């Protein structure tokens, strides 16, 4: 195929990019600014879904507990903002960390904290595989849900409101368009990073583990360590998405860690196409738009989502973007 001839795939990606970049000014012009907020939410979930696709689609690790990292990231931002207002310390031992509303600090800490959590959960869960892994990740996510529910200082069950969005240099994140572009930029950055990662030597080892872990072990790769690092990277990505989510809604609560959130993120990945990097973005767009529009007509939108989901699993297994790429592969 001629390299310079635009393929259908490239056209679709360009169209999606143009649409996402052009959305805020168009929405403002049409006085439909509601869509900027909606699509910020979509982009944030897309970021979480892409991070899940990294371990699910390339590492073959079916994690049903991704909301734990998502929620932990959100809580870090919430807790930092809480102490920032009070002017008190988040941790006073063994060293002092003051609360802050500086995005550069709290988002980085959110990603790092989620990565740390992913390290602990992954280190235990990856001792097993298959269906054990699904159940254990789900159980640990539930444990984190109860953990944050029990934090009375940070609102317990009721959650914690942020006073304002974080500061990011001179950028005013309380402006919805500016926040939207921040989310878009981070999502694109993470997509490029993920593409680079899965095509690197590290990515090849991870994909090899998915195909045949025993053989990779026999070739001399410490597969457990590789998978754990991959799991930690995905946790950090979800933590960053959580940090953005806390800013989007200016509110954090244990409901961000509810098991249905893990399910939703998983659905986005599968709806978009497992192991396709950008597929989950389309999955997030479709799922959240479906939710938005069906729920305008009926409050019982889950009654439709359930059967749709079963249908997709039974008959359209490669997902929206996945079936698309496959068709191009057959033609070209």
């Amino acid at each position, binding site marked *: 195929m001629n390299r310079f001839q635009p393929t259908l795939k490239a056209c679709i990606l360009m169209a999606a990019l143009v649409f996402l970049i052009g959305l805020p000014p168009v929405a403002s012009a049409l006085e439909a600014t509601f869509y900027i907020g909606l699509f910020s939410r979509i982009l944030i979930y897309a970021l979480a879904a892409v991070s899940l696709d990294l371990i699910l689609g390339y590492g073959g690790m079916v994690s049903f507990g991704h909301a734990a990292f998502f929620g932990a990231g959100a809580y870090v931002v919430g807790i930092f903002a809480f102490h920032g207002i009070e002017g008190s310390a988040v941790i006073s031992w063994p060293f002092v960390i003051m609360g802050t509303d500086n995005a550069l600090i709290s988002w980085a800490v959110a990603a790092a904290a989620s990565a740390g959590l992913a390290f602990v959960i992954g280190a*235990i869960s990856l001792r097993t595989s298959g*269906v054990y892994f699904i159940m*254990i990740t789900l159980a640990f996510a539930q444990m984190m849900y109860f*953990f944050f529910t*029990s934090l009375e200082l940070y609102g317990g069950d009721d959650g914690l409101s942020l006073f304002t969005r974080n500061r990011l240099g001179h950028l005013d994140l309380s402006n919805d368009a500016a926040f939207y572009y921040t989310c878009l930029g981070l999502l694109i950055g993470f997509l490029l990073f993920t593409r680079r990662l899965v095509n690197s030597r590290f990515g090849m080892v991870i994909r090899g583990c998915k195909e045949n872990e025993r053989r990779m072990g026999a070739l001399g790769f410490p597969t457990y360590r590789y998978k754990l690092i991959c799991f930690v990277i995905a946790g950090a990505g979800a933590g960053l998405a959580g940090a953005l989510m806390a800013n989007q809604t200016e509110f954090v609560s244990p409901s961000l860690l509810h*098991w249905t959130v893990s399910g939703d993120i998983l659905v986005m990945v*599968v709806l978009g196409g497992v192991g396709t990097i950008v597929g989950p973005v389309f999955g997030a767009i479709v799922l959240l738009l479906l939710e938005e529009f069906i729920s305008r007509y009926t409050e019982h939108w*889950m*009654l439709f989502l359930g059967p749709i989901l079963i249908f997709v699993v039974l008959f359209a297994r490669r997902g929206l973007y996945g079936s698309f790429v496959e068709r191009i592969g057959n033609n070209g």
Partner: protein
Amino acid sequence: MYLLLFCQQFLNGLQFGVMLFLMASGLTLIFGIMDLINLAHGSLFMVGAYLCATVFQQTGSFMLGLLVALPGTALVGIVVEIFTLRTLYARDHLDQVLATFGLILFFNELTKIIWGPRALFLDVPEALSGTIEIIPGAPYPTFRLAIIIVGIIVAIFLYFLITRTRLGMLIRASATNREIVGALGVNVKLLYTLIFGLGALLAGLAGAMAGPLFAVEVGMGEDILILTFVVIVIGGIGSIRGALVGAILVGLIDTLGRAFLPALFKLFLDPATADGVGASLDSMAIYILMALVLAWKPRGLLPAHE
């Protein structure tokens, strides 16, 4: 005084463990034999609870509620198996997780439409509403005691079913090698449907008995489902003995942890800190137990196939 309180909480833990066992035994059978991970098992628990609660409220007879709920839940399970899950046996676990997640959403919403979003609260059936002093000086609710007895009967029944009957022989055989069992002329499809129906029936029984103890509400199935997963992971997938041991262990540790951990921490921490730490730890105790078991034995305490 502390000893009596401990005995009561111990029985409470046992009763909770029995309920988990009813869920876990069905789920582990289904997984061990059909290699299917069924998230919608919690929905069957909920269906059982709602069916029993409705009949109980209308007629005032808990027995009648049970008589409707058990076959009703089994029937719902069998219909679901025939229409969706049957196709999923040959698929990978990810597909099974997603499709059964879809089933949960569907069942929860349908329940909300039929019974409304508000929780139902039931009284304990009159015949079992009293207390019994099995340990002198420590009256214990008869209803909870009845649940423990039902659980013991079910465990014995399952033991005989699986080790002593022809159906049990087929179940054990197909857990080892289902292709061969099919090749020997056994109607494997029918066998799978029957096993699924049995699992659904047990989940329905657990749900029906849970009605007077917990609020009957949408989403009640998922909370217990996740605990059931913890039980199965601790006990070892596919093993009914493992499910029994895991369920009793989780039931006891969860109940005793909630009752005594805060008091325990007060012995060496100041009360405010102790309450905080206790509140975090008591809800996390069983997950920590799971992590410890996994670190020690990644395939569970009593795995089905060594």
